[in-house]
């Protein structure tokens, strides 16, 4: 199913396309990937693995693995990258695909070589910010990004950003920040941008190989390399972890927020960091039921405001819980979780199963830093920024890109100024993990308008301080991690009830309690990022407090879409005075949605897979570790783990984790040796040809660029 509307994102589709899958006629849209079109049609199984016949489906949605391979008009393609075309005949890959035959060599061109001062890999928040610093100083910069539009993960972020309003566009939605940064970079003459372009390798002769425009191989010789290609998601081993329907939050956000496909009906999330929490929120915005979220730690590790948002919309959060298994016949049908003890071991008897069709794994990120390390090894001057340097929020990435841009300008001699000390400090502040929790005393005033801050955890964020026309909201400017303080009482000034702070707060954590009309039944104004049409005046809604506890029904008295606002809706609710200050949200998901199944379900096949490309189980690897294997390259040689299409990007960390679980110290373990290529590319492209998808004579050639 496709989304027909979205509270934040514009839903615009170009011409419809007919194609077939297994002979069945389906509809796609111009610019849509095959995988998105299949997902929209409810197809989850794209083929079966040659080794054990296990069902294969979408996993990374990012061209990095080959789990989503299909045969499109006779050509094996990664369905998350290849676009659907009119009349296309799509078939699942059953076993190994047949290589299409050819009788004469493709037309070949001489290879293009490009010399630049700076090559930036990745046009996300860090790369774009660095490009701005460099471009403004006239440094000849080439920015390559593997997507058709710049912004990286920003374009998938429908929520407003945390951070500093001066330094990093805090209070603006991620997708809108992407547009602003992209436009600013486009205005700079010194910066050239190659979209749809993937770096394949950094070589010892200081050449960077790039697949330009998804079509041709080009070699770039930069003076300085900036690696800003973000992070990759960690995976997890559990029984059933490779069933179609188990995938990462990145893939989910791509399907929902880029492709505008309702990728799931019922979603369960593993991992309570910001990525998992935000994905849950995005799912709710797309009308997807979020059955629950489990987190192995005693508290969610993400921002409390993100956690609270989910909780008060009605999503149960199971802390100190882990996923035991995913069940289903060929695709996810249910998940079983259990409580864990203080050694993170499941506690027998605490198992619960939930019906769901999708299980999101959001258990942390690792920097995509192999190009940086390769460049360092080979003596090519290199910098990294954003998640590729250190995993943190996108706001921190914006700032670290800015710092890196300035540092590179200095290295090239076009900038003499040192990186300002306040920049360095801001970079550190924005990267900081959540700090102390400071519960503010409940406001005692029951007259006038009282702003309530459901924001009790120290995080780097200050947009609320900048919008108050009376300057009554205070956060120590020297440390924007402090929680906001309302100065009205202290200064003897009254809140005018302008609602600006309610609108700007990224955490949707500020409400206004207005006692002016009826002190006993005040109104509470809160920000609501769901379609205005989903709420109507006079409707009764269940009110919840900051943590998600039920406060009882309240009446909606006003629904105000904000003109010139960024698609936020303000709800005004009539609430009894005794709960008004605690009221932080309204339930958007019914409680029965998250009921567990009446019985605990056991998986059909007791198999935990570490290497999904080559179908190598945790049991096989553990056995080798117990037999004394310490070299991951030897494990790879014997089992093929890490030899598959993704190049060990997924299983590398999982195998390292198995070593830890087996009590082997890190110094004893030899890690995989990273080698080119970053993604698989046809041999003919290196020879000077084009990719089959760019060849107009090829049936799977691109019909146009997605938008």
């Amino acid at each position, binding site marked *: 199913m496709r989304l027909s509307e979205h509270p934040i994102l514009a839903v615009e589709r170009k011409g419809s396309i007919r194609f077939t899958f297994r002979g069945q006629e389906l509809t796609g849209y111009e610019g849509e990937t095959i995988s998105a079109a299949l997902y929209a049609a409810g197809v989850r199984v794209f083929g079966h693995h040659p080794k054990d016949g296990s069902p294969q489906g979408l996993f990374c949605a990012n061209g990095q693995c080959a789990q989503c391979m299909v045969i499109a008009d006779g050509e094996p393609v990664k369905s998350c990258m290849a676009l659907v075309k009119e009349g296309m005949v799509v078939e699942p890959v059953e076993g*190994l*695909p047949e290589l299409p035959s050819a009788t004469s*060599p*493709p037309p070949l061109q001489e290879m293009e070589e490009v010399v630049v001062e700076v090559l930036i890999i990745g046009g996300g928040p860090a790369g774009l910010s660095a490009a701005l610093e460099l471009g403004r100083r006239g440094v000849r910069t080439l920015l390559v990004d593997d997507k058709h539009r710049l912004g990286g993960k920003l374009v998938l972020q429908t929520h407003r950003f945390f951070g500093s309003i001066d330094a990093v566009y805090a209070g603006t939605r991620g997708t809108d920040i992407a547009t602003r940064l992209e436009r600013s970079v486009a205005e700079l003459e010194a910066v050239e941008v190659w979209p749809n372009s993937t770096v394949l390798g950094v070589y010892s002769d200081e050449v960077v190989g790039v697949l330009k425009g998804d079509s041709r191989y080009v070699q770039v010789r930069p003076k300085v390399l900036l690696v800003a290609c973000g992070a990759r998601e960690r995976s997890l081993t559990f029984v059933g972890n490779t069933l179609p329907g188990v995938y990462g939050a990145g893939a989910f956000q791509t399907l929902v927020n880029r492709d505008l496909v309702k990728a799931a009906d019922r979603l369960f999330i593993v991992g309570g960091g910001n990525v998992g929490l935000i994905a849950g929120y995005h799912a709710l915005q797309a009308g997807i039921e979020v059955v629950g979220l489990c987190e192995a730690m005693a508290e969610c590790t993400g921002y409390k405001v993100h956690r609270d948002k989910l909780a008060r919309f009605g999503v149960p959060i199971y802390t100190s819980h882990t996923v035991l298994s995913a069940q289903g016949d060929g695709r996810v049908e249910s998940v079983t979780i259990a409580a864990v003890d203080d050694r993170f071991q499941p506690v027998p008897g605490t198992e619960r199963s939930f019906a769901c069709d999708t299980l999101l794994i959001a258990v942390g990120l690792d920097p995509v830093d192999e190009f940086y390390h390769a460049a360092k090894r080979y003596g090519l001057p290199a910098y990294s920024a954003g998640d590729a340097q250190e995993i943190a929020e996108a706001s921190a990435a914006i700032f670290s890109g800015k710092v890196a841009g300035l540092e590179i300008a200095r290295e090239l001699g076009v900038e003499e100024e040192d990186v300002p000390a306040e920049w360095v400090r801001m970079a550190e502040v924005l990267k900081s993990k959540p700090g102390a929790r400071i519960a503010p005393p409940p406001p005692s005033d029951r007259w006038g308008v009282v702003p309530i801050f459901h924001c009790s955890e120290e995080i780097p964020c200050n947009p609320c301080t900048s919008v108050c026309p009376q300057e009554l909201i205070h956060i120590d400017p020297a440390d924007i991690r402090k929680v906001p303080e309302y100065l009205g009482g202290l200064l003897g000034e009254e809140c005018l009830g302008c609602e600006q702070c309610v609108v700007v707060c990224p955490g949707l954590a500020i409400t206004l309690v207005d006692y002016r009309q009826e002190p006993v039944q005040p109104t509470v104004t809160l920000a609501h990022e769901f379609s205005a049409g989903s709420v109507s005046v006079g409707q009764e809604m269940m009110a919840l407090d900051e943590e998600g506890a039920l406060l009882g029904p309240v009446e909606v008295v006003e629904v105000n879409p904000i003109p010139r606002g960024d698609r936020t809706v303000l709800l005004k609710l009539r609430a009894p005075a005794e709960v008004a200050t605690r009221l932080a949200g309204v339930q958007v998901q019914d409680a029965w949605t998250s009921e567990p199944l009446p019985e605990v379900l056991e998986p059909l096949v007791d198999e935990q897979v570490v290497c999904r490309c080559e179908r190598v189980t945790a049991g096989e690897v553990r056995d080798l570790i117990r037999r004394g294997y310490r070299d991951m390259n030897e494990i790879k040689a*014997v089992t093929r783990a890490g030899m598959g299409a993704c190049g060990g990007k997924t299983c590398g960390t999982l195998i390292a984790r198995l070593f830890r679980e087996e009590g082997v110290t890190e110094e004893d373990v030899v890690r995989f040796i990273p080698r080119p*290529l970053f993604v698989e590319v046809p041999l003919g492209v*290196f*020879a000077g040809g084009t990719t089959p998808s760019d060849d107009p004579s090829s049936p799977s050639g691109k019909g146009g660029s997605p938008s």
Partner: protein
Amino acid sequence: MTTQHYDVVIIGAGSVGAPTALAMARDGLKVLVLDSLPSQGQGSNKTAIGGVRATHSDVAKIRLCLRSLEIMSGWRETYGHDIEWLGGGYVFVAYREIEEQKLKQLLKRQHSYGLDIDWYDATDLLKIVPDLNPDGLLGGTYSPGDGHCSPLLAGHAYCDQAKRYGAEFRFRERVTGIVVQGGRVRGVETDRGRYGADVVVNAAGAWARELGQLVGLDHPVEPDSHEAGITEQVAHFLDPMIVDIRPAPGSANYYFHQLATGQVTFCITPEPPIVGFDCRETSVFLPQVSRRMVDVMPRLARLRVRRTWRGLYPMSPDGSPLVGWAGEPEGYLMAIGMCGQGFMLGPGLGEFLSRMVLQRLTEEDREVLTELSPDREFAGVEVLK
């Protein structure tokens, strides 16, 4: 501290050391293998692409590789491990008369050794390899008895089997000295211990020269590097190893085959050679090799490359291995300078070395030994490297 004593200490657990340990342990010798790297085959063994042929131009390599072919092709039946053996043969293609002449010339010699190899004209060759570019194809030789298997799995199978026969392996242990007394090898010193030995085998591949210096010998072995790559897996479409010996700017021959598991693996010989130990990947390789490959087999153009790497060829002055005892010190046995063919020579050579240690050489073995003698004159150059 008592020193463990071994009949043989083999230095290097690679393409040569591993099968040698197997052969010697099976023959009842007490064997220790030392390797400074973390596990089996982490030097050049794992960088090999796995081709095995007996169709060489000189008798020593022919005999050793014929035995290797027997061992590898029968491995699964004999020992049980799947080493992904595929007996698809070798095809040397000719698109120019000069290569046709060269291959036909060589054929005479190969026939005189009784090798199963013949010339096929273009039409017949296309029946064996339908995907060859027919444009300009003159024909080629085809030797159905050759094949390939996985160097990774084979190396482990050798070690595994050697251990069953009692051989010991120690990894992450660097040899720092070879103990010599009275002109005889007595043992080996490492950064972690000391081992007594009657025989020390230098199977150190690209690092053979460095090891020889520990006994005051200067082995004429110098590595050069070749890059290789592997593609995604596709359904089986190619039986033999394809070799194109035409020179091109920057490269001599190149070759590729499809593995039992569906990937195509390929390698090229740089010309002039890139001498030295540098194994870092270069930007030159893929554009260079891919142009040549899609020209000979256009179907490969759409096959996705997955990974590339660079490995070392321990080169001798004339392209043939150096095998034999050192005059001094006694008990020091060289199995070095494999020139990139250590993997295919390994199993046959291992048994040969065992016969040397046990003084069971046959008449035929003596011919091999003469041909591979480290003391030979390095005059000729091998016809087919």
